[in-house]
Protein backbone atom coordinates (compact mmCIF):
# COMPACT_ATOMS: atom_id res chain seq x y z
CA UNK A 1 0.00 0.00 0.00
CA UNK A 2 1.38 3.36 -0.95
CA UNK A 3 1.92 5.60 2.02
CA UNK A 4 4.55 7.98 0.75
CA UNK A 5 2.95 9.92 -2.05
CA UNK A 6 6.07 11.33 -3.63
CA UNK A 7 7.84 8.03 -3.93
CA UNK A 8 4.92 6.48 -5.76
CA UNK A 9 4.15 9.22 -8.23
CA UNK A 10 7.75 10.00 -9.01
CA UNK A 11 8.80 6.48 -9.84
CA UNK A 12 5.68 5.76 -11.82
CA UNK A 13 5.82 9.12 -13.46
CA UNK A 14 9.32 8.24 -14.56
CA UNK A 15 8.19 4.91 -15.94
CA UNK A 16 5.32 6.52 -17.80
CA UNK A 17 7.55 9.26 -19.12
CA UNK A 18 10.01 6.71 -20.38
CA UNK A 19 7.15 4.83 -21.97
CA UNK A 20 5.45 7.99 -23.20
CA UNK A 21 2.08 6.34 -22.85
CA UNK A 22 0.17 6.72 -19.61
CA UNK A 23 -2.88 4.80 -20.82
CA UNK A 24 -3.07 2.10 -23.44
CA UNK A 25 -6.16 0.31 -24.70
CA UNK A 26 -6.00 -2.56 -27.18
CA UNK A 27 -9.09 -4.23 -28.69
CA UNK A 28 -11.17 -3.43 -25.65
CA UNK A 29 -14.73 -4.72 -25.77
CA UNK A 30 -17.46 -4.56 -23.18
CA UNK A 31 -20.63 -6.60 -23.10
CA UNK A 32 -23.19 -6.16 -20.32
CA UNK A 33 -25.31 -9.12 -19.35
CA UNK A 34 -24.48 -12.61 -20.51
CA UNK A 35 -25.91 -14.88 -23.12
CA UNK A 36 -28.14 -13.83 -25.97
CA UNK A 37 -29.57 -10.83 -24.15
CA UNK A 38 -26.22 -9.10 -23.80
CA UNK A 39 -25.67 -5.47 -24.67
CA UNK A 40 -22.46 -4.63 -26.46
CA UNK A 41 -21.39 -1.29 -25.09
CA UNK A 42 -17.91 -1.16 -26.61
CA UNK A 43 -16.30 -2.98 -29.50
CA UNK A 44 -12.60 -3.25 -30.26
CA UNK A 45 -11.53 0.08 -28.89
CA UNK A 46 -7.90 1.05 -29.40
CA UNK A 47 -6.61 4.16 -27.72
CA UNK A 48 -3.39 5.66 -26.44
CA UNK A 49 -3.07 8.53 -24.04
CA UNK A 50 0.38 10.02 -23.47
CA UNK A 51 1.46 11.10 -20.04
CA UNK A 52 0.36 14.66 -19.36
CA UNK A 53 -1.97 14.65 -22.37
CA UNK A 54 -5.52 16.00 -22.31
CA UNK A 55 -7.88 13.74 -24.26
CA UNK A 56 -11.64 14.18 -24.59
CA UNK A 57 -14.17 11.49 -25.39
CA UNK A 58 -17.23 12.69 -27.21
CA UNK A 59 -20.13 10.91 -28.85
CA UNK A 60 -23.90 10.40 -28.86
CA UNK A 61 -25.63 9.07 -25.75
CA UNK A 62 -25.07 5.39 -25.22
CA UNK A 63 -21.81 5.31 -27.13
CA UNK A 64 -20.07 3.92 -24.10
CA UNK A 65 -17.80 6.81 -23.21
CA UNK A 66 -18.63 6.64 -19.52
CA UNK A 67 -18.15 2.88 -19.67
CA UNK A 68 -14.77 3.38 -21.23
CA UNK A 69 -13.81 5.77 -18.46
CA UNK A 70 -14.82 3.26 -15.84
CA UNK A 71 -12.89 0.50 -17.56
CA UNK A 72 -9.76 2.59 -17.43
CA UNK A 73 -10.41 3.25 -13.77
CA UNK A 74 -10.96 -0.40 -12.91
CA UNK A 75 -14.50 0.28 -11.81
CA UNK A 76 -15.55 -2.22 -14.46
CA UNK A 77 -13.72 -5.14 -16.00
CA UNK A 78 -13.60 -5.53 -19.81
CA UNK A 79 -15.13 -8.50 -21.59
CA UNK A 80 -12.17 -8.61 -23.94
CA UNK A 81 -8.98 -6.75 -24.73
CA UNK A 82 -6.20 -5.29 -22.62
CA UNK A 83 -5.75 -2.03 -20.80
CA UNK A 84 -2.68 -0.68 -19.14
CA UNK A 85 -2.25 2.38 -17.01
CA UNK A 86 1.30 3.54 -16.37
CA UNK A 87 2.55 0.18 -17.53
CA UNK A 88 0.33 -1.71 -15.07
CA UNK A 89 -3.09 -3.30 -15.18
CA UNK A 90 -5.94 -0.98 -14.20
CA UNK A 91 -6.37 -2.93 -11.00
CA UNK A 92 -2.76 -2.45 -9.99
CA UNK A 93 -3.03 1.20 -10.88
CA UNK A 94 -6.15 1.58 -8.76
CA UNK A 95 -4.59 -0.18 -5.80
CA UNK A 96 -1.59 2.05 -6.26
CA UNK A 97 -3.88 5.10 -6.15
CA UNK A 98 -2.73 6.33 -9.49
CA UNK A 99 -5.83 7.98 -10.71
CA UNK A 100 -8.31 10.51 -9.48
CA UNK A 101 -11.92 10.63 -10.58
CA UNK A 102 -14.44 13.46 -10.93
CA UNK A 103 -18.13 12.78 -11.61
CA UNK A 104 -20.89 14.97 -12.94
CA UNK A 105 -22.17 15.38 -9.40
CA UNK A 106 -19.63 16.70 -6.90
CA UNK A 107 -20.23 13.72 -4.57
CA UNK A 108 -18.99 15.62 -1.54
CA UNK A 109 -19.71 14.36 1.95
CA UNK A 110 -22.32 16.55 3.65
CA UNK A 111 -20.87 15.89 7.06
CA UNK A 112 -17.37 17.05 6.22
CA UNK A 113 -16.09 20.56 5.73
CA UNK A 114 -14.62 21.48 2.36
CA UNK A 115 -11.12 20.95 3.73
CA UNK A 116 -12.02 17.56 5.19
CA UNK A 117 -13.55 16.55 1.88
CA UNK A 118 -10.38 17.34 -0.01
CA UNK A 119 -8.42 15.37 2.56
CA UNK A 120 -10.50 12.23 2.12
CA UNK A 121 -8.18 10.42 -0.33
CA UNK A 122 -5.17 11.28 1.81
CA UNK A 123 -6.93 9.84 4.85
CA UNK A 124 -7.64 6.64 2.99
CA UNK A 125 -3.96 6.49 2.08
CA UNK A 126 -3.08 7.07 5.72
CA UNK A 127 -1.01 10.14 5.11
CA UNK A 128 -0.11 11.84 8.42
CA UNK A 129 -2.43 14.61 9.54
CA UNK A 130 -0.14 17.61 9.18
CA UNK A 131 0.87 16.68 5.66
CA UNK A 132 -2.78 16.00 4.76
CA UNK A 133 -3.82 19.41 5.88
CA UNK A 134 -1.09 21.30 4.04
CA UNK A 135 -1.69 19.29 0.90
CA UNK A 136 -5.40 19.95 0.98
CA UNK A 137 -4.90 23.68 1.54
CA UNK A 138 -2.47 23.77 -1.36
CA UNK A 139 -5.04 22.24 -3.66
CA UNK A 140 -7.77 24.55 -2.44
CA UNK A 141 -5.48 27.46 -3.17
CA UNK A 142 -4.98 26.08 -6.65
CA UNK A 143 -8.72 26.05 -7.35
CA UNK A 144 -9.18 29.38 -5.60
CA UNK A 145 -11.29 28.19 -2.69
CA UNK A 146 -9.00 28.39 0.31
CA UNK A 147 -11.24 30.86 2.17
CA UNK A 148 -14.01 28.27 2.07
CA UNK A 149 -11.99 25.56 3.74
CA UNK A 150 -14.17 25.49 6.84
CA UNK A 151 -17.49 25.73 5.09
CA UNK A 152 -19.84 22.86 4.42
CA UNK A 153 -20.69 21.72 0.87
CA UNK A 154 -24.28 22.93 1.03
CA UNK A 155 -23.00 26.44 1.55
CA UNK A 156 -21.23 26.44 -1.81
CA UNK A 157 -22.64 26.87 -5.29
CA UNK A 158 -22.63 23.98 -7.76
CA UNK A 159 -19.60 25.30 -9.57
CA UNK A 160 -17.66 25.76 -6.35
CA UNK A 161 -18.57 22.27 -5.18
CA UNK A 162 -17.25 20.88 -8.42
CA UNK A 163 -13.99 22.75 -7.93
CA UNK A 164 -13.69 21.13 -4.49
CA UNK A 165 -14.31 17.80 -6.15
CA UNK A 166 -11.45 18.48 -8.56
CA UNK A 167 -9.18 19.54 -5.72
CA UNK A 168 -10.02 16.30 -3.95
CA UNK A 169 -9.24 14.25 -7.04
CA UNK A 170 -5.83 15.89 -7.35
CA UNK A 171 -4.96 15.89 -3.66
CA UNK A 172 -2.77 12.84 -3.91
CA UNK A 173 -1.14 13.84 -7.22
CA UNK A 174 -2.34 10.98 -9.38
CA UNK A 175 -0.77 10.49 -12.77
CA UNK A 176 -4.17 10.17 -14.40
CA UNK A 177 -7.38 12.13 -13.92
CA UNK A 178 -10.68 10.69 -15.13
CA UNK A 179 -13.50 13.17 -15.54
CA UNK A 180 -17.05 12.13 -16.43
CA UNK A 181 -18.92 15.20 -17.72
CA UNK A 182 -17.81 17.16 -14.67
CA UNK A 183 -19.32 20.43 -15.80
CA UNK A 184 -22.46 19.00 -17.33
CA UNK A 185 -24.71 20.15 -14.52
CA UNK A 186 -23.55 23.75 -14.64
CA UNK A 187 -24.63 26.75 -16.64
CA UNK A 188 -22.70 27.88 -19.70
CA UNK A 189 -20.82 30.80 -18.18
CA UNK A 190 -19.71 28.86 -15.13
CA UNK A 191 -18.75 26.05 -17.44
CA UNK A 192 -16.48 28.20 -19.55
CA UNK A 193 -14.86 29.70 -16.49
CA UNK A 194 -14.24 26.29 -14.97
CA UNK A 195 -12.80 25.13 -18.29
CA UNK A 196 -10.17 27.85 -18.00
CA UNK A 197 -9.51 27.00 -14.37
CA UNK A 198 -9.14 23.33 -15.19
CA UNK A 199 -6.48 24.18 -17.77
CA UNK A 200 -4.66 26.29 -15.16
CA UNK A 201 -4.68 23.44 -12.71
CA UNK A 202 -3.65 20.97 -15.36
CA UNK A 203 -0.69 23.04 -16.47
CA UNK A 204 0.43 22.99 -12.84
CA UNK A 205 -0.01 19.29 -12.16
CA UNK A 206 0.75 17.68 -15.54
CA UNK A 207 -1.66 14.80 -15.04
CA UNK A 208 -2.96 12.88 -18.02
CA UNK A 209 -6.66 13.66 -18.31
CA UNK A 210 -9.40 11.61 -19.93
CA UNK A 211 -12.41 13.87 -20.18
CA UNK A 212 -15.90 12.73 -21.17
CA UNK A 213 -18.22 15.42 -22.45
CA UNK A 214 -21.27 16.17 -24.56
CA UNK A 215 -20.09 19.62 -25.50
CA UNK A 216 -18.09 19.97 -28.69
CA UNK A 217 -16.85 23.43 -27.80
CA UNK A 218 -15.68 22.23 -24.41
CA UNK A 219 -13.84 19.26 -25.91
CA UNK A 220 -12.08 21.41 -28.50
CA UNK A 221 -11.18 24.12 -26.00
CA UNK A 222 -9.67 21.78 -23.44
CA UNK A 223 -8.02 18.94 -25.31
CA UNK A 224 -4.90 17.96 -27.18
CA UNK A 225 -6.98 15.38 -29.00
CA UNK A 226 -10.69 14.74 -29.30
CA UNK A 227 -11.83 11.14 -29.69
CA UNK A 228 -15.17 10.83 -31.48
CA UNK A 229 -17.05 7.65 -30.68
CA UNK A 230 -19.82 5.90 -32.57
CA UNK A 231 -23.13 4.91 -30.99
CA UNK A 232 -23.60 1.45 -29.55
CA UNK A 233 -21.58 -0.65 -30.00
CA UNK A 234 -19.07 2.08 -29.22
CA UNK A 235 -16.00 2.31 -31.41
CA UNK A 236 -13.40 4.96 -32.01
CA UNK A 237 -14.66 6.65 -35.16
CA UNK A 238 -12.21 9.48 -35.47
CA UNK A 239 -9.52 11.27 -33.54
CA UNK A 240 -9.15 14.99 -34.14
CA UNK A 241 -5.87 16.62 -33.17
CA UNK A 242 -6.39 20.04 -31.65
CA UNK A 243 -3.49 22.18 -32.72
CA UNK A 244 -4.58 25.32 -30.93
CA UNK A 245 -1.61 26.86 -29.10
CA UNK A 246 -1.39 26.78 -25.33
CA UNK A 247 -1.99 28.45 -22.97
CA UNK A 248 -5.55 28.86 -24.17
CA UNK A 249 -7.65 31.78 -23.03
CA UNK A 250 -11.20 33.00 -23.39
CA UNK A 251 -10.21 34.63 -26.67
CA UNK A 252 -9.25 31.27 -28.10
CA UNK A 253 -12.94 30.55 -28.49
CA UNK A 254 -13.21 33.44 -30.97
CA UNK A 255 -10.39 32.32 -33.26
CA UNK A 256 -11.16 30.99 -36.74
CA UNK A 257 -9.13 27.83 -36.13
CA UNK A 258 -11.35 27.09 -33.12
CA UNK A 259 -14.48 27.22 -35.24
CA UNK A 260 -12.86 25.05 -37.90
CA UNK A 261 -12.00 22.39 -35.37
CA UNK A 262 -15.46 22.51 -33.84
CA UNK A 263 -16.94 22.09 -37.31
CA UNK A 264 -14.64 19.15 -37.98
CA UNK A 265 -15.69 17.40 -34.81
CA UNK A 266 -19.32 18.16 -35.53
CA UNK A 267 -19.01 16.65 -38.99
CA UNK A 268 -17.58 13.46 -37.57
CA UNK A 269 -20.40 13.32 -35.03
CA UNK A 270 -23.01 13.74 -37.73
CA UNK A 271 -21.43 10.94 -39.70
CA UNK A 272 -21.65 8.49 -36.84
CA UNK A 273 -25.18 9.49 -36.05
CA UNK A 274 -26.45 8.46 -39.45
Amino acid sequence: MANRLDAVSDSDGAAAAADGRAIMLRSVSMVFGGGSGGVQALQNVDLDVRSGEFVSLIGPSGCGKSTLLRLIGDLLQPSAGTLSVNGKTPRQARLGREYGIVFQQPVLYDWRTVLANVQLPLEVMQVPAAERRSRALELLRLVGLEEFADRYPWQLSGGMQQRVSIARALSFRPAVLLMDEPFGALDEMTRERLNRELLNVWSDTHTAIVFVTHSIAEAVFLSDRVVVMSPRPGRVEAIVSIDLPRPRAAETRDEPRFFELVATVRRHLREVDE
Partner: protein
Amino acid sequence: MAAARLGRRLPVGLALLGLLVAWELVAWLYFTASVPPAFQAGAISGADPSVPADMRVVQTKLPLPHLVLAALVDPSNAGQLWLAGLITLRSAVLGFVVGGAIGFGLALLMAQSRPIERSLLPYAIASQMVPVIALGPIVYSMFKDETVARVLIAAYVTFFPVTINSLKGLRSIDPNALALMTSLAASRAQVYLKLRIPAALPYVFAALKIAATTSVIGAIVVELMGAQQGIGVTILRTQYYGPANAYKLWGAIVVASLLGIIFFQAVAAVERVVLRWQPEFRAEAGG
Protein backbone atom coordinates in the same frame (compact mmCIF):
# COMPACT_ATOMS: atom_id res chain seq x y z
CA MET B 1 -30.78 33.29 17.84
CA ALA B 2 -32.17 32.93 21.35
CA ALA B 3 -34.97 35.30 20.48
CA ALA B 4 -35.86 33.21 17.45
CA ARG B 5 -35.93 30.07 19.55
CA LEU B 6 -38.20 31.79 22.06
CA GLY B 7 -40.41 32.96 19.24
CA ARG B 8 -40.90 29.40 18.15
CA ARG B 9 -41.59 28.11 21.63
CA LEU B 10 -44.08 30.83 22.43
CA PRO B 11 -47.06 29.53 20.44
CA VAL B 12 -46.70 26.12 22.07
CA GLY B 13 -46.46 27.68 25.49
CA LEU B 14 -49.55 29.76 24.83
CA ALA B 15 -51.41 26.75 23.49
CA LEU B 16 -50.49 24.75 26.59
CA LEU B 17 -51.67 27.57 28.78
CA GLY B 18 -54.89 27.74 26.85
CA LEU B 19 -55.30 24.01 27.22
CA LEU B 20 -54.82 24.19 30.97
CA VAL B 21 -57.30 26.99 31.30
CA ALA B 22 -59.85 25.11 29.21
CA TRP B 23 -59.27 21.97 31.24
CA GLU B 24 -59.73 23.83 34.50
CA LEU B 25 -62.95 25.30 33.22
CA VAL B 26 -64.42 22.06 31.93
CA ALA B 27 -63.34 20.13 35.04
CA TRP B 28 -64.88 22.74 37.29
CA LEU B 29 -68.13 22.74 35.35
CA TYR B 30 -68.26 18.95 35.40
CA PHE B 31 -67.51 18.88 39.10
CA THR B 32 -70.14 21.38 40.12
CA ALA B 33 -72.68 19.79 37.81
CA SER B 34 -72.13 16.28 39.17
CA VAL B 35 -71.54 16.92 42.84
CA PRO B 36 -73.89 18.98 45.00
CA PRO B 37 -72.17 21.44 47.35
CA ALA B 38 -72.79 19.28 50.39
CA PHE B 39 -70.53 16.56 49.07
CA GLN B 40 -67.98 18.68 47.30
CA ALA B 41 -65.37 18.85 50.04
CA GLY B 42 -65.70 15.12 50.62
CA ALA B 43 -65.44 14.36 46.91
CA ILE B 44 -62.07 16.10 46.82
CA SER B 45 -60.50 14.94 50.03
CA GLY B 46 -61.94 11.43 50.04
CA ALA B 47 -62.26 11.71 53.81
CA ASP B 48 -66.05 11.66 53.87
CA PRO B 49 -67.43 8.11 53.55
CA SER B 50 -70.95 9.32 53.02
CA VAL B 51 -70.19 10.65 49.57
CA PRO B 52 -71.87 8.39 46.96
CA ALA B 53 -69.57 6.25 44.83
CA ASP B 54 -70.32 7.86 41.51
CA MET B 55 -69.48 11.26 42.95
CA ARG B 56 -66.27 10.00 44.43
CA VAL B 57 -64.86 9.09 41.07
CA VAL B 58 -65.62 12.47 39.52
CA GLN B 59 -62.17 13.79 40.35
CA THR B 60 -60.54 10.64 39.07
CA LYS B 61 -62.35 11.00 35.78
CA LEU B 62 -61.59 14.66 35.24
CA PRO B 63 -59.60 16.31 38.01
CA LEU B 64 -59.15 19.98 38.59
CA PRO B 65 -55.68 20.70 37.19
CA HIS B 66 -54.62 23.02 39.96
CA LEU B 67 -55.13 20.23 42.46
CA VAL B 68 -53.05 17.91 40.30
CA LEU B 69 -50.30 20.52 40.24
CA ALA B 70 -50.54 20.80 44.01
CA ALA B 71 -50.07 17.06 44.32
CA LEU B 72 -47.05 17.25 42.03
CA VAL B 73 -45.22 19.80 44.11
CA ASP B 74 -46.21 18.33 47.45
CA PRO B 75 -42.96 17.03 49.00
CA SER B 76 -44.67 14.11 50.64
CA ASN B 77 -45.48 12.79 47.19
CA ALA B 78 -41.95 13.16 45.89
CA GLY B 79 -41.04 9.56 46.49
CA GLN B 80 -44.04 8.13 44.77
CA LEU B 81 -43.92 10.55 41.90
CA TRP B 82 -40.50 11.94 41.08
CA LEU B 83 -38.25 9.30 42.58
CA ALA B 84 -40.37 6.59 41.04
CA GLY B 85 -40.09 8.36 37.72
CA LEU B 86 -36.31 8.34 37.96
CA ILE B 87 -36.29 4.63 38.66
CA THR B 88 -38.34 3.97 35.57
CA LEU B 89 -36.25 6.33 33.48
CA ARG B 90 -33.03 4.68 34.51
CA SER B 91 -34.17 1.28 33.25
CA ALA B 92 -35.60 2.78 30.10
CA VAL B 93 -32.35 4.55 29.25
CA LEU B 94 -30.29 1.45 29.90
CA GLY B 95 -32.55 -0.65 27.72
CA PHE B 96 -32.46 2.07 25.06
CA VAL B 97 -28.67 2.03 24.96
CA VAL B 98 -28.50 -1.75 24.81
CA GLY B 99 -31.24 -1.99 22.20
CA GLY B 100 -29.70 0.76 20.11
CA ALA B 101 -26.30 -0.91 20.12
CA ILE B 102 -27.79 -4.29 19.20
CA GLY B 103 -29.94 -2.72 16.52
CA PHE B 104 -27.04 -0.93 14.91
CA GLY B 105 -24.83 -4.00 15.10
CA LEU B 106 -27.56 -6.09 13.52
CA ALA B 107 -27.90 -3.57 10.71
CA LEU B 108 -24.16 -3.65 10.10
CA LEU B 109 -24.39 -7.42 9.90
CA MET B 110 -27.33 -7.37 7.52
CA ALA B 111 -25.65 -4.77 5.33
CA GLN B 112 -22.87 -7.22 4.57
CA SER B 113 -24.87 -9.45 2.26
CA ARG B 114 -28.33 -9.80 0.78
CA PRO B 115 -28.84 -13.40 1.88
CA ILE B 116 -28.13 -12.44 5.46
CA GLU B 117 -30.52 -9.56 5.21
CA ARG B 118 -33.22 -11.70 3.64
CA SER B 119 -32.86 -14.27 6.40
CA LEU B 120 -32.96 -11.86 9.29
CA LEU B 121 -35.28 -9.16 8.09
CA PRO B 122 -38.57 -11.07 8.19
CA TYR B 123 -37.89 -11.98 11.81
CA ALA B 124 -37.09 -8.47 12.72
CA ILE B 125 -40.39 -7.41 11.19
CA ALA B 126 -42.41 -10.28 12.65
CA SER B 127 -40.98 -9.57 16.07
CA GLN B 128 -42.78 -6.29 16.02
CA MET B 129 -46.06 -7.97 15.24
CA VAL B 130 -45.93 -9.69 18.60
CA PRO B 131 -47.54 -7.36 21.09
CA VAL B 132 -44.20 -6.91 22.72
CA ILE B 133 -45.78 -5.22 25.69
CA ALA B 134 -47.66 -8.41 26.29
CA LEU B 135 -44.30 -10.05 26.62
CA GLY B 136 -43.73 -7.92 29.68
CA PRO B 137 -45.37 -10.19 32.20
CA ILE B 138 -43.83 -13.23 30.60
CA VAL B 139 -40.35 -11.77 30.67
CA TYR B 140 -40.95 -10.77 34.25
CA SER B 141 -41.99 -14.21 35.31
CA MET B 142 -39.01 -15.62 33.44
CA PHE B 143 -36.42 -13.48 35.12
CA LYS B 144 -38.22 -12.56 38.33
CA ASP B 145 -36.40 -9.23 38.38
CA GLU B 146 -38.40 -6.17 37.48
CA THR B 147 -35.38 -4.09 36.51
CA VAL B 148 -34.15 -6.77 34.16
CA ALA B 149 -37.62 -7.05 32.69
CA ARG B 150 -37.84 -3.28 32.19
CA VAL B 151 -34.44 -3.10 30.55
CA LEU B 152 -35.19 -6.07 28.29
CA ILE B 153 -38.48 -4.65 27.08
CA ALA B 154 -36.97 -1.22 26.55
CA ALA B 155 -34.14 -2.83 24.56
CA TYR B 156 -36.64 -4.86 22.59
CA VAL B 157 -38.72 -1.89 21.48
CA THR B 158 -35.58 0.04 20.62
CA PHE B 159 -33.69 -2.44 18.52
CA PHE B 160 -36.17 -2.87 15.70
CA PRO B 161 -36.60 0.73 14.51
CA VAL B 162 -32.86 1.25 14.92
CA THR B 163 -32.10 -1.85 12.86
CA ILE B 164 -34.48 -0.94 10.08
CA ASN B 165 -33.43 2.68 9.85
CA SER B 166 -29.73 1.97 10.16
CA LEU B 167 -29.94 -0.61 7.41
CA LYS B 168 -31.74 1.86 5.18
CA GLY B 169 -29.11 4.48 5.89
CA LEU B 170 -26.20 2.10 5.36
CA ARG B 171 -27.61 1.05 2.02
CA SER B 172 -28.81 4.31 0.55
CA ILE B 173 -25.49 5.56 -0.65
CA ASP B 174 -24.95 7.30 -3.96
CA PRO B 175 -23.30 4.77 -6.30
CA ASN B 176 -20.87 7.49 -7.34
CA ALA B 177 -19.71 7.93 -3.76
CA LEU B 178 -19.02 4.21 -3.62
CA ALA B 179 -17.23 4.36 -6.98
CA LEU B 180 -15.06 7.12 -5.57
CA MET B 181 -14.08 4.94 -2.64
CA THR B 182 -13.33 2.07 -5.00
CA SER B 183 -11.13 4.33 -7.11
CA LEU B 184 -9.14 5.16 -3.99
CA ALA B 185 -8.74 1.47 -3.22
CA ALA B 186 -10.29 2.06 0.20
CA SER B 187 -10.57 -0.98 2.44
CA ARG B 188 -13.99 -2.25 3.42
CA ALA B 189 -13.57 -0.91 6.92
CA GLN B 190 -12.64 2.51 5.56
CA VAL B 191 -15.73 2.59 3.38
CA TYR B 192 -17.87 1.85 6.43
CA LEU B 193 -16.14 4.27 8.77
CA LYS B 194 -15.80 7.15 6.35
CA LEU B 195 -18.87 6.83 4.19
CA ARG B 196 -21.61 4.39 5.13
CA ILE B 197 -21.81 5.03 8.86
CA PRO B 198 -21.70 8.86 8.76
CA ALA B 199 -24.28 8.77 5.98
CA ALA B 200 -26.51 6.48 8.04
CA LEU B 201 -26.44 8.63 11.18
CA PRO B 202 -29.41 10.86 10.30
CA TYR B 203 -31.53 7.76 9.79
CA VAL B 204 -30.25 6.25 13.03
CA PHE B 205 -31.19 9.32 15.00
CA ALA B 206 -34.66 9.37 13.51
CA ALA B 207 -35.14 5.88 14.91
CA LEU B 208 -33.52 6.75 18.23
CA LYS B 209 -35.93 9.59 18.75
CA ILE B 210 -38.89 7.30 18.27
CA ALA B 211 -37.32 4.67 20.49
CA ALA B 212 -36.71 7.20 23.24
CA THR B 213 -40.41 7.53 23.90
CA THR B 214 -41.38 3.93 23.26
CA SER B 215 -38.70 2.58 25.59
CA VAL B 216 -40.11 4.68 28.40
CA ILE B 217 -43.60 3.44 27.62
CA GLY B 218 -42.34 -0.14 27.56
CA ALA B 219 -40.71 0.23 30.95
CA ILE B 220 -43.90 1.67 32.40
CA VAL B 221 -46.06 -1.09 31.02
CA VAL B 222 -43.79 -3.71 32.58
CA GLU B 223 -44.39 -2.01 35.89
CA LEU B 224 -48.12 -2.07 35.33
CA MET B 225 -47.84 -5.84 35.49
CA GLY B 226 -47.00 -5.64 39.14
CA ALA B 227 -43.57 -4.38 40.03
CA GLN B 228 -42.39 -2.88 43.29
CA GLN B 229 -40.96 0.42 42.19
CA GLY B 230 -41.41 2.86 39.39
CA ILE B 231 -43.91 5.34 38.09
CA GLY B 232 -46.05 2.58 36.60
CA VAL B 233 -46.35 1.09 40.08
CA THR B 234 -47.59 4.43 41.37
CA ILE B 235 -50.20 4.50 38.62
CA LEU B 236 -51.21 0.97 39.45
CA ARG B 237 -51.54 1.64 43.16
CA THR B 238 -53.33 4.94 42.97
CA GLN B 239 -56.03 3.87 40.57
CA TYR B 240 -57.91 1.80 43.04
CA TYR B 241 -57.97 3.78 46.21
CA GLY B 242 -60.50 6.44 45.55
CA PRO B 243 -60.55 10.21 45.13
CA ALA B 244 -57.79 10.91 47.63
CA ASN B 245 -55.47 9.28 45.18
CA ALA B 246 -57.02 10.82 42.10
CA TYR B 247 -54.52 13.69 42.06
CA LYS B 248 -51.62 11.36 42.67
CA LEU B 249 -52.81 9.18 39.81
CA TRP B 250 -53.00 12.06 37.41
CA GLY B 251 -49.78 13.45 38.82
CA ALA B 252 -48.15 10.10 38.07
CA ILE B 253 -49.54 10.23 34.54
CA VAL B 254 -48.05 13.69 34.14
CA VAL B 255 -44.68 12.50 35.45
CA ALA B 256 -44.81 9.49 33.13
CA SER B 257 -45.49 11.76 30.18
CA LEU B 258 -42.69 14.08 31.19
CA LEU B 259 -40.26 11.17 31.26
CA GLY B 260 -40.92 10.39 27.64
CA ILE B 261 -40.78 14.01 26.56
CA ILE B 262 -37.57 14.73 28.45
CA PHE B 263 -35.80 11.66 27.11
CA PHE B 264 -36.88 12.56 23.59
CA GLN B 265 -35.56 16.10 23.97
CA ALA B 266 -32.28 14.74 25.33
CA VAL B 267 -31.79 12.52 22.28
CA ALA B 268 -32.77 15.41 20.01
CA ALA B 269 -30.14 17.57 21.70
CA VAL B 270 -27.47 14.95 21.11
CA GLU B 271 -28.61 14.77 17.50
CA ARG B 272 -28.17 18.51 17.10
CA VAL B 273 -24.57 18.17 18.23
CA VAL B 274 -23.63 15.05 16.28
CA LEU B 275 -25.38 16.16 13.12
CA ARG B 276 -24.46 19.83 13.38
CA TRP B 277 -23.41 19.79 9.76
CA GLN B 278 -27.01 19.42 8.63
CA PRO B 279 -28.43 22.58 7.05
CA GLU B 280 -31.59 22.36 9.15
CA PHE B 281 -29.61 22.85 12.30
CA ARG B 282 -27.45 25.62 10.95
CA ALA B 283 -29.84 27.86 9.11
CA GLU B 284 -32.43 28.10 11.89
CA ALA B 285 -34.69 29.87 9.46
CA GLY B 286 -38.34 30.16 10.45
CA GLY B 287 -40.90 27.49 9.66
